[in-house]
């Protein structure tokens, strides 16, 4: 089935000349004082920032950077929480002819050093004391770094290094420069072309050190245009920006799409209040990695377990109705009038409230991408009446290349390519993409570029196929695909997402490539299992202790048995164990976007893997772990190896 995608008449046509700053200037002049470009919740109040304010701020920061010595092509890095200043800094860097680099807010010092050094960053925007401290500790190792700019004055009173400068001072320098050269800002913007590099984006890398993908203005803008052609947004829409800017999905929504449509971008008060703030705003469009939706699912499941009998019944009945209607929709069958009525009842009694609590009540389109999402989670949201769509994409295409269309959603596929994008499957089963958004190459890494870019096609390293309706199905990363005992290929990611549908399981790691059977290492959800243990009056003091309780093993076994259902014999999990700690990005076990680094954990937990394929009942663990605050703890425990009862 092919889709005729309507391109709205007013949609921006993207010429080779158009750059992000040019479009920004045009939009800001068009909307001016009359429209709110972004909002930030501060001191308990949503404070609006108009397009004019946005323009003024960007202008003075850009000129300030020029006056500090920024030249065309210089790299400007940003680190910090989502806040207007972060976006201003990025836009200002682009306007001044610089190249933007984003770092994850929670990057460790070593990661910061690597990226700042590798990208040849000249200016670093940090938010406050924490970021400045990180930057100071690496300053001497990064000779290209000139200035560190901060905007949150809290705790900064005793810092007086001459390479530190506040955002206010930068803007003051900008104002002074404007006095001398009033037209400089416009000239700088007119100077650029669409084919120049706009962003240097570091991919999270499940196997190696991060690679820096070079994205042009044209890459970013065509991406936004094509996505918005599929699901148009209005300039009166609201969007909440709370995911790291260092994730391409957030760039796509805030810059590529946000700028073209002109919707209002809302910033939460603090990361801890994000969920609450989303509810207050009620965004019209949402794009988040699966873990966000997994968290929402878990929240609902846990609240359900806690609710009174009558509320539970209501929820059960309404989700039965929801699932039934969702299944009819998936099968593209008409929904009979009777079921429509029931659906309406379910909506007014349960779903409306539920969606409101999750901040989903106004969402027209919710997207998920960046990692695999389990079909169970996916169906859960459709049963609630949320139009959740899978996307497929990567940093190297400036965002996404494939997406579901409304009314044509299958929970095991990722949909059709967006306009201007071609998808092919190579003979080896690898997914390759060609579109105007395909990136320019990796920074300082010609070998990787050569591997990824061949004749204008982007080689993804993902295995997949097209189904009978032309939907793309993504199987798994090529190197991750398992061969089962019966010789068939198997996607560990699929099993892992199924296991994670249980509210008790936070992370899972499935093992079994070329092995006689499949095994799993699981991380329990401390909060949920802890609550469960409290109710059962089980005593525990810590995660390691709770995870090794026989009762908890029984609980987890039940969850696995459920996930094992309707899977062919060789694909079923046969043995499992509960890990004594949670997997953590700070320990290199996960990437910053929480993808499992399979090769690393396999090496790190070699003993556990061996035990799962041996005939032992326990693995002895004797190790030291580092806490975030620098303390160390010695852990001595025995992990059980459990064989699942058929």
């Amino acid at each position, binding site marked *: 089935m092919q889709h005729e995608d309507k391109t709205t008449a007013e949609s921006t046509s993207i010429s080779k000349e158009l750059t992000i700053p040019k479009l920004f200037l045009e939009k800001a002049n068009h909307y001016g004082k009359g429209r709110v470009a972004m909002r930030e919740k501060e001191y*308990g109040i949503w404070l609006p920032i108009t397009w004019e304010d946005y323009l003024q701020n960007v202008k003075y920061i850009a000129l300030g950077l020029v006056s500090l010595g920024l030249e065309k092509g210089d790299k400007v890095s940003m680190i910090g929480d989502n806040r207007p200043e972060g976006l201003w800094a990025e836009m200002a860097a682009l306007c001044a002819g610089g190249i933007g680099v984003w770092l994850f807010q929670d990057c460790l010092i070593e990661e910061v050093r690597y990226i700042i050094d590798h990208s040849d960053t000249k200016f670093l925007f940090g938010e406050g004391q924490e970021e400045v401290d990180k930057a100071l500790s690496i300053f001497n190792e990064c000779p290209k770094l000139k200035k560190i700019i901060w905007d949150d004055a809290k705790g900064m009173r005793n810092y007086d290094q001459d390479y530190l400068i506040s955002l206010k001072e930068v803007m003051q320098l900008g104002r002074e420069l404007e006095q001398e050269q009033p037209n400089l800002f416009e000239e700088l913007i007119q100077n650029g072309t669409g084919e120049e590099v706009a962003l240097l984006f570091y991919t999270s890398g499940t196997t190696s050190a991060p690679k820096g993908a070079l994205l042009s203005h044209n890459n970013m803008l065509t991406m936004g245009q094509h996505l918005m052609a599929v699901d148009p947004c209005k300039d009166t829409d609201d969007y909440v920006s709370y995911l790291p800017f260092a994730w391409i999905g957030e760039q796509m929504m805030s810059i590529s799409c946000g700028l073209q449509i002109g919707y209002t971008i809302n910033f939460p*008060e603090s990361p801890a209040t994000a969920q609450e703030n989303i509810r207050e705003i009620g965004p019209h469009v949402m794009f988040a990695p699966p873990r966000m939706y997994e968290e929402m699912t878990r929240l609902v499941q846990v609240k359900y377990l806690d609710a009174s009998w009558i509320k539970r019944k209501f929820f059960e009945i309404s989700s039965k109705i929801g699932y039934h209607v969702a299944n009819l929709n998936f099968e593209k069958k008409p929904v009979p009038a009777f079921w429509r009525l029931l659906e309406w009842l379910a909506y007014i009694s349960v779903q409306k409230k539920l969606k409101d609590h999750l901040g989903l009540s106004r969402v027209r389109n919710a997207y998920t991408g960046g990692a695999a999402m389990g079909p169970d989670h996916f169906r859960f949201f459709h049963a609630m009446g949320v139009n959740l769509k899978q996307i497929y994409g990567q940093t190297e295409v400036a965002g996404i290349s494939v997406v579901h269309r409304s009314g044509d959603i299958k929970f095991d596929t990722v949909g059709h390519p967006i306009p201007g994008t071609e998808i092919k499957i190579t003979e080896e089963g690898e997914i390759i993409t060609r579109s105007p958004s395909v990136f320019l190459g990796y920074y300082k890494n010609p070998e990787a570029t050569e591997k990824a870019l061949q004749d204008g096609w982007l080689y993804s390293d993902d295995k997949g196929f097209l189904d009978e309706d032309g939907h793309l199905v993504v199987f798994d990363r090529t190197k991750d695909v398992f061969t089962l005992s019966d010789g068939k290929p198997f996607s560990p990611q699929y099993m892992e997402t199924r296991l994670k549908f249980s509210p008790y399981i936070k992370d899972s790691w499935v093992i079994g490539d070329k092995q006689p059977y499949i095994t799993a290492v699981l991380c329990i959800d401390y909060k949920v299992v802890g609550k469960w243990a409290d109710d059962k009056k089980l005593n525990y003091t810590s995660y390691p202790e709770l995870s090794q309780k026989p009762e908890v093993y029984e609980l987890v076994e039940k969850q696995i048995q459920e996930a094992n259902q309707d899977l062919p014999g060789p694909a079923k999990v046969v043995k499992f164990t509960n890990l004594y700690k949670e997997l953590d990005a700070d320990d290199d076990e996960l990437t910053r976007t929480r993808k499992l680094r399979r090769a690393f954990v396999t090496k790190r937990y070699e003993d556990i893997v061996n035990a799962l394929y041996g005939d032992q009942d326990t693995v002895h663990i004797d190790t030291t772990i580092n806490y975030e605050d620098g303390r160390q703890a010695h852990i001595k425990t025995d992990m059980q190896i459990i064989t699942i009862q058929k």
Partner: protein
Amino acid sequence: MELEDISMYFGKVTALSGVNLKIRKGEIHSVIGPNGAGKTVMMNIINGLYHPQEGNIYYKGQRINHLSPHARAKLGLARTFQKVEVFGGMTVLDNIRLGRHIHFKSGIVSGAWYLGKTAREEIEHRRFIEEEIIDLLEIEQIRHKPVGMLPYGLQKRVELGRALALEPELLILDEPLAGLNLEEVEDMARFILDVNEEKRWKVTCLLVEHDMGVVMDLSKHVFVLNFGNMIIDGTPDEVQNNPEVIKAYLGEEDLYATRR
């Protein structure tokens, strides 16, 4: 703030005998001593909960012996308690607002109608509470939660917030770190420093604390009390090297090692 020859007896028990203390503006002055040394009694005297039998209390050169606690609060004296004394059923915001109550100037009539002056006043106070206190203490996410539901560490923060709502010039902190975990201690120590050093606040602090690491790091002067008698009042270095202090803490020397 000055205490001059203060003595306080409960029946025949001498809680404080002839104590002299001088707190200079803008400093963090700590009071340490073994349990039962009379530290909290001293705080209660400064705060006005107790009235000493002998001696004088001066605040900004004015003798304030006779003033009640709320009158002293108006002069700019605020305190937190060793065991948190917050209103558990009220929200964080309401608790902090209570601390602000003393600064409301409009009368009962305009208050009842909530017109003109009162409304304006309330908006102004709200700004102060939201923008300065909640932002400083990083408690945005719990603004509307009942305090009783919060973990102890956060309750302590709320209590500090309430004391700050008074906009005090002298803040008495009675064991602000007791019962907190390492991370909470670090946060709280930072807040105390912020309040003391940040231009906006510049609050003089009188700190009673057992955590020697924090006391020695933060304080300009340390006052050591033992069984109602002053042992020494000096800089942290002087105190650490004073043989009598070491004697008073004999067997408790480990205290110096904790969290250092």
